[in-house]
């Protein structure tokens, strides 16, 4: 038996070695920046570094909380994220139910394949496309003109821009959840439908009484997990598409932090705003995972 324990030890060493590269990289690129958070409590000057910069306690937080643009960004973040999260569940749900009612398998596969395509495009590419299409001299306005309407300045309008941000995000991601829901629907026990048909239930009744209840668990789970990300309103998309005119309706915490830190070089104030976001979102994610665990027994690890 002694030889075996020695062998086990040797074996465990191999496991530690395997983990070593990832541990080092995580320490450098995840934990060091975590330590850098101290700058939120300083008057950080890059030349003086983390050690010599002056400590100011919670002054930076008081400063950002006094900025109206911070509260505007926070409000926008909640609004945009809320609509993105809920619509990214509802639209794919409806699409999956519609796809499930199709009789022709070829058309079904074609739709499923095609609506998945935008998911794989970067916002750098989609941003360019969206601008071509929604620009004042873009495709949609030409269509409106053909119908006799006036051109709408979609990209510089506070009445339209937020809707475009939400709509294009839902559009980009719709293929993903549709596939997920469709997989859940096809997993429903077919004998349930057979029994319902014997009892004379029509398609509509079957949909309401069998399909929807059977996948509702998954829908609820995705909603709860999604709501954990309520402070992530989509930095990359908004950062590429927004401009100073529409800041009022689409500026979010992340873009606010970027401008404050990189454009105005108020590093400490930006780090404080970022830290505020991290902590609040950690609470949201934690609570949503806890609720998901309690209600559906979902576990990540």
């Amino acid at each position, binding site marked *: 038996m002694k030889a075996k324990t020695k062998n086990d030890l040797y*074996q465990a060493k191999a496991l*530690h070695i395997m983990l070593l*590269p*990832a541990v080092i*990289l*995580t320490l450098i*690129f*995840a*934990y060091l*920046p*975590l*330590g*850098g*958070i101290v*700058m939120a409590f300083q008057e950080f000057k*890059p030349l003086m570094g983390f050690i010599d910069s002056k400590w100011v306690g919670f002054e930076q937080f008081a400063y950002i909380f006094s900025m109206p643009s911070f509260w505007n960004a926070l409000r926008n973040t909640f609004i945009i994220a809320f609509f993105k999260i809920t619509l990214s569940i509802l639209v794919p749900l409806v*699409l999956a139910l519609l*796809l499930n*009612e*199709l*009789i022709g398998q070829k*058309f079904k596969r074609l*739709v499923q394949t095609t*609506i*998945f*395509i935008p998911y794989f*495009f970067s916002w*750098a*590419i989609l941003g*360019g*496309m969206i601008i*071509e299409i929604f620009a*004042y*001299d873009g*495709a949609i306005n030409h269509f409106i003109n053909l119908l006799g309407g006036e*051109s709408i*300045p979609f990209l510089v309008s506070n009445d339209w821009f937020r809707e475009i941000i939400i709509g294009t995000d839902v559009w980009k991601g719709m293929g993903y959840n549709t*596939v*997920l829901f469709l*997989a859940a629907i096809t997993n429903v026990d077919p004998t349930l439908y057979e029994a319902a048909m014997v009892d004379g239930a029509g398609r509509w009744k079957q949909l309401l009484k069998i399909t929807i209840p059977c996948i509702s668990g998954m829908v609820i789970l995705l909603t709860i997990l999604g709501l954990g990300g309520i402070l992530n309103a989509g930095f*990359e998309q908004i*950062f*590429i*598409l*927004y*401009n*100073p005119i529409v800041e009022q309706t689409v500026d979010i915490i992340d873009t606010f932090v970027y401008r404050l*830190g*990189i454009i105005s070089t108020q590093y400490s104030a*930006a*780090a404080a705003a970022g*830290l505020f*976001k*991290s*902590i609040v979102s*950690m609470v949201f*994610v*934690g609570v949503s995972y806890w609720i998901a665990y309690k209600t559906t027994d979902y576990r*990540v*690890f």
Partner: protein
Amino acid sequence: MKIKDSMSRKVFNVFNIVVLSLVTLSCVLPILHILALSLSDSTAAAAGKVSFYPINFSLEAYKYLIEKKDFFNSVGISVLRVVIGSVINMFLIVLTAYPLSKSSVNFKHRNKYMIFFAITMFIGGGLIPTYMVIKSLNLLNSFWVLILPGAVSIWNVIIMMNFFRGIPHAMEEAAAIDGASHWQILFQVFLPMSLPALASLLLFTMIGHWNSWFDGMFYMNSPEKYPMATFLATQIINNNKNITNMTPEQLAAMNALSDKSIRSSQLFLSIIPILIVYPFLQRFFIKGIVVGSVKE
């Protein structure tokens, strides 16, 4: 099962096909529009005459890109990034997932490591402190800044870990009895059994590298070091900065000056790799989603 469809059912079927066709078109038409713009004469494109087929067919835009070189230079950086980045990512995913897939009985410190990695999923330093760290490591403006900070993607590690856990224990035990080390078990037993999971993770990783643009913009000072996606993104962002204080008409005039067909040809070229890879490997993607989300 041959029950005659009722009238309302027929109406619904038509409605259903129409709705789904419209949704499908919404994903195809923008691509066709971009392709048509890129193949059109630039005056026709600027005049807004182009819809879904080229007007006054011209390859000028593509010629221009080849002569100007900067776009293809950025494509080259992207290709390098995809190749090197994906190899490193996959290597780390496999190497990290294997020890974590052991139970804490077989690997005593497993849970400690798991917590160490999992914490990074919930809290990060944020934009500014991360930038300061990258700067103090002298990584600004280096190619490796596109690879190293994202080299350990813990979500993918967890997906791989769950896949490894699905491999029957008997396989591992048999190999261990034959005297195989963990390295041999991982590379000669586990990996050959994990090809579908590896393929889908590899594809997601490759597309992720191809599409990333923010790190390039944030950490690179000189545009000639931008990968393709960053090159495209900064064009849009610089354009947006000029928008303030302009009427929509002035904006349209400015847009017409910068060449629509050149912009479109860049966009189209950058989606070609994805469009080529996608149809063949769609199955893997769907499998990847199911592997990733339906845990247990």
